[in-house]
């Protein structure tokens, strides 16, 4: 038997849905508009603004940079976050309570401030190249997500399984990969996706850290908007969305499938 939905509930759902989807529709519409200015609904249909994006060297370059930074930052965040989340849960009783909070601190600090302090301390003081500073900055802002998501999954993990494996002759490190990791697989995938999206969309930290010759896609979009008001912005936004969705799909498929095939 189906329970009838209250009309108000339906109305509410429709409104929420509209607010979530409307911006996507508007951007998609604006991106295919056959005009030289941003407009919605589109007047005429054309793909030329997508072509234009790739004709502009600045966009081509920043797309690549953004992808590189997102992959590196996400990779580092997982490399640090996975062992950190493991230790926080495995040795919870021995460790002080405040330690798990340390790993969420970067979320609490306004990103603008984080970017500024990184600029001051890492880029200027330590004299690191722009690209490295960007990777460090992005690693910092995505690390809390990695730790949080994996930690949530590990908090439900029964560590006596690990002891069972060790008692059966599996060395501790090997046990981590054969017993612990497969059981937090979906959390690692979720952390990857969340971290990747956060990095590739980041503006505030990147704003401070981009420098001569090195910029990220969102910063390039910002720079473009300051001068022009053409549908290139909409097209590049659509591309950014597609890129994100694409990475998510690839991660889900490869990581998901290889883990399943074991």
């Amino acid at each position, binding site marked *: 038997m189906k329970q009838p939905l209250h009309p108000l509930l339906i109305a509410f759902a429709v409104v929420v849905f509209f607010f979530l989807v409307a911006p996507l529709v508007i951007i998609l519409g604006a991106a295919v508009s056959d005009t030289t200015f941003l407009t919605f609904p589109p007047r005429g249909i054309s793909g030329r603004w997508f072509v234009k994006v790739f004709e502009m060297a600045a966009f081509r370059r920043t797309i690549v940079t953004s992808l590189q930074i997102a992959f590196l930052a996400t990779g580092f965040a997982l490399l640090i976050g996975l062992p950190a989340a493991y230790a926080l849960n495995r040795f919870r009783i021995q460790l002080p309570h405040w330690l798990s909070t340390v790993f969420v601190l970067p979320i609490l600090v306004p990103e603008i401030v984080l970017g500024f302090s990184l600029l001051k301390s890492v880029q200027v003081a330590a004299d690191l190249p722009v690209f490295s500073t960007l990777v460090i900055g992005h690693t910092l802002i995505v690390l809390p997500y990695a730790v949080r998501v994996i930690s949530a999954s590990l908090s439900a993990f029964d560590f006596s399984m690990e*002891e*069972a494996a*060790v*008692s*059966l*002759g*599996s*060395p*501790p490190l090997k046990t981590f990969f054969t017993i612990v990791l497969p059981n937090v697989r979906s959390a690692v995938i979720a952390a990857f996706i969340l971290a990747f999206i956060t990095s590739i969309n980041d503006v505030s930290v990147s704003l401070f850290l981009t420098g001569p010759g090195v910029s990220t896609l969102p910063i390039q979009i910002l720079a473009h908007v300051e001068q022009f008001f053409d549908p290139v912005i909409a097209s590049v936004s659509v591309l950014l969305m597609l890129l994100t969705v694409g990475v998510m799909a690839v991660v889900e498929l490869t990581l998901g499938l290889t883990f399943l095939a074991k």
Partner: protein
Amino acid sequence: MTEPLTIEDLSAHYGKVQVLEDFSLQIAAGELVSLLGASGCGKTTTLRLIAGFLEPTSGRIRLGDQDLTRLPAHRRNIGLVFQNYALFPHLTVAENVGFGLKQRGIGGAERAARVAAMLERVELTDLASRLPGALSGGQRQRVALARALVIEPPLLMFDEPLSNLDAKLRVGMRAEIRQMQRANGTTSVFVTHDQEEAFSISDRVAIMQAGRIMQFDTPETLYQRPANAFVARFVGFENLIPMRVVAREGESVEAEAEGGARLSLSQAEYGAIPDAFVLGARAEGLLVLPPEAPGLPATLGLRSYLGRAYQYLCATPAGPLTAQGPLGAPQMPAAAARLQPLAAQCCILAPE
């Protein structure tokens, strides 16, 4: 393949809390020994020390002539069965059972054959390709048992393996564990806080309190001849009456309880009686007699029918006691009576 386990003066602590102190235990090859004690007395800690998940501050653990004390856990070759089973949820039943063999580099056909033989023994052949999530509690327990047994370890350890099963299954699994252990002759340590379980499954039982062994003996000896008041209370001696000797005449001893009541006891029946002692008696070891008879004077209280006898709560100058009287003569509450200990069901203990 079967080895004796020797634990010498083991001490361990969590942080600043001392959990085990100078703990010693000798288990013969092929013997099944239970650690029995109240929650928090250190049973699991003892197992974790033997398994190598916890480092002792001092003491030694030897299995046969091998010193385990500093050996990493994964090289100790001990079969462990956990209270919550700790099965690997992402591996099938067969993969769970084969896990230990895989670690030992036993591959392909031999592994498959040994896993199949073990699954057959625990009657799980049909479920070989299931994931643990799709098994009942009893089936999970069997998988856990098979996983520990298949590596043919010289030592098996069980941490309250039956406490998550219902009463009927528990008794069945208990017999199964005992049979397999006998058949393989594997030295075993079994942890439980259920006295009946410990007594029914073990060759010997170590009764523990606060990280120390209070008595280590066969179930029969523990039940009949507890070594101290703690063990006596644990195995069901309801009445512990502190007494002191006031007169001796040959084998006969005149002893006085608190409140002045006297009993005459024969050392021929009770064995040597020291000047100060505690008389331990189960309810059935304290007989309700008419007020003219010799014994501790008492006023009868609540009466309950036990089938083979009546049991009485009694008020005495030495405190409240529990005694039994014959079915033929039910006594009224508030009646005066005498309580006479029956030597065969009593014991003489050192004062606490």
